[in-house]
C-alpha cells in the first residue's frame, strides 16, 4: 500500500508491484567478467555506487545477460516453447495458492518453517552463507521464498533441498554481480 498523508487527511492506495530493472555492469558494458572490461576500476566503482546496498539487497533475482554470440543471432537454435514455460509457471502458481498466497513472495516470514521446510543439507548451506556474511537477515527470508518457488517450478515436493537453496542463493548474488567483486 501507499499512504499519502496531507493536512486534510490521508488516502491509502493499493500497491502491489513487481520491480524489474536492467543496467549495464560498467560504463563500457563489457564488465562483469574480469579481464573483459577496459573501464578504469574507479570509473566502474563510481558507476555501480549509484545504487545503494540496501536497495540492491531487495532484488531477489539477478540474471546476468551476456551479449549473444554471432552464431546464435544468425541461426538461433530451438528454444523452449513459451507455452511449455507458461504451463510450468501456472502449475507453480497453483502450488503457491494452496498455501493461501498468490505468489510465494507473499509468504509470511513467521510461517516460513512450515511453508518452506528445509532438509539438513539445505540448512547447512544457508548457515554457511549467513556465517560468512554473504547473506543478510533480510536475504535469508527472501532466499527461502525463492527456493520455495524453485522447488515448485521443478515439482520437487514439499521439502526444499540444497539444490533449490543453492539456485536461490545464486540468483541472489546481485550485489556481487554489480560490484564485480573478486572470487571468494
Amino acid at each position: 500500500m501507499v499512504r499519502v498523508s496531507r493536512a486534510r487527511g490521508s488516502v491509502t492506495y493499493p500497491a502491489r508491484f513487481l520491480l524489474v530493472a536492467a543496467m549495464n555492469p560498467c560504463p563500457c558494458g563489457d564488465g562483469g567478467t574480469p579481464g573483459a572490461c577496459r573501464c578504469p576500476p574507479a570509473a566502474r566503482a563510481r558507476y555501480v555506487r549509484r545504487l545503494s546496498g540496501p536497495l540492491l539487497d531487495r532484488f531477489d533475482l539477478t540474471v546476468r545477460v551476456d551479449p549473444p554470440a554471432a552464431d546464435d543471432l544468425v541461426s538461433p537454435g530451438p528454444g523452449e516453447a513459451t507455452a511449455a514455460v507458461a504451463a510450468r509457471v501456472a502449475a507453480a502458481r497453483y502450488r503457491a495458492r494452496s498455501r493461501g498466497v498468490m505468489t510465494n513472495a507473499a509468504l509470511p516470514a513467521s510461517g516460513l518453517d512450515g511453508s518452506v521446510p528445509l532438509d539438513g543439507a539445505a540448512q547447512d548451506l544457508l548457515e554457511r552463507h549467513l556465517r560468512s556474511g554473504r547473506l543478510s537477515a533480510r536475504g535469508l527470508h527472501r532466499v527461502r521464498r525463492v527456493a520455495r518457488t524453485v522447488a515448485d517450478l521443478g515439482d520437487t515436493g514439499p521439502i526444499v533441498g540444497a539444490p533449490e537453496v543453492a539456485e536461490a542463493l545464486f540468483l541472489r548474488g546481485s550485489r556481487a554481480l554489480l560490484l564485480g567483486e573478486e572470487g571468494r
Partner: protein
Amino acid sequence: MTRDGPDQRAAAAALLDLPGMTPVRLAGLLDGFRPALAWSAVRAGTHPADPDRRFASAARGLDPGEVGRRYRQAGVDVLLVDSPGYPAALVGDPGAPVVLCAVGDPGVLEARPAVAVVGTRSATPYGTRVASQLGRDLAAAGVVVVSGLARGVDAAAHSGALAAGPGAAPPVAVVGTGADVPYPRENRMLWDRVARSGAVLSEAALGTPARPRVFPARNRIIAALSDVVVVVESHRGGGSLYTAEAAARRAIPVCAVPGSVLSRASTGTNGLLVDGCVPVRDAADVLTAVSLARQGKGMAPPAPVGGGGGAVPRGDRSPAGPPPTDRVQRSVWEAVDDTPTTAETVLLRTDLSLSAVTAASEELVAAGLLTAGAGWWCRA
C-alpha cells in the same frame, strides 16, 4: 662527498618542486649544472635551459632549505644521478631520472638481480595468482621484485614478494605519484610495507597526484632497474606493454606468461609471445632468463637459495587437487575453464539444471576446486 651535501639535495628538491617542472625540463636544467648552481641561475633568470624564465618567479618564492626539510620530514631521500645511493642500474641509462625520490632503502637493488613483474590493473584470478606466486618464489630466490604498486598484477606481485618471509629479497616499487601519495588508496598498507621492507621510488615531486601521463613514464624506470621484465597479463595496448617496449629498447629480455587465447586479459601477453618474447611458466623459468641476461652482461647469476641445486620450486602447474569423484560435481568442474566461465556457459556445456549446477559449485568452492565470482566460476 662534499659535492652533493644537503645543500645540493635541497636545491634538487626545490627544482623538482617548482610548478610545471617535468623530468625532461629538470634534466635540461641539471645538464652541466650542479643543483645549487642551477637553482641560483633559475632564480636569477640566467639559466640557459630556461631562456623564457618560466621558473624564475616561482623560484624566488621558494626556500630550498625549507623544501629540503619538508622532504626529510616526509621520510623521502632525494637521490642525484651521480651521487651515492642512486641505483647503479639507472646510471648511464638514457632515460634515467636526474633526481629520484626514495622512501626506504634503494640499496637493496645493489648486488641482487632484479625482475620486473608487471601487468594489467584489471587482472583475472589467473593473473593475480600467477603474479603473487612469481613474486613469492622470485623473492625467496633472492631476486628483487620490481613493480608499480598499481591494482591487479602489480599489487599481487608485491604482496607475493612480501609473503616470501624473512631472508627473502625485499621488493622495490616505482610509482607515478609523489613518493608520499599512495595510489590507489586501497594499496596504502601494501605501499607502507614495501617502503619498510624495500623501497618506493618516484621521480615526481612530493604531493604529485595521480595523472594518466605519469604512469607510462615511470614504466621506463621499472624496465631500466630490472635484469628481466615479466608481463603476467596484459590487454592489447595495455600500459604494461610500455614497460615491455622500454625494456626491449634497452636490450633487457622481456618474458610473458602465456594465457588463454580466449581471455581478453591475455591478448597483450600472448601477442608478446607471438612477437618472440620468452614464455615463462614459473619462477624457475624466469630465473633461467635472469641467468642468461646476467651472463650476457658479465654479471653473477642469481645464487640459489635454500639447500643445494634445484632449490627453486617449480610452480605448481597441476590443478589444486584431484578432480571430484561425484558425477555431477565432476561434469560441472569439467565445464568450468581456467578463466571466468559464466553460469550460462556451464549450463550449455553440462545440460544440467541451474539448481544442480549451483549446488555442485557450492561444494566445489567449499572444497577449494573452484573460485566463485559474480555469476561466474573459474578453476582455483
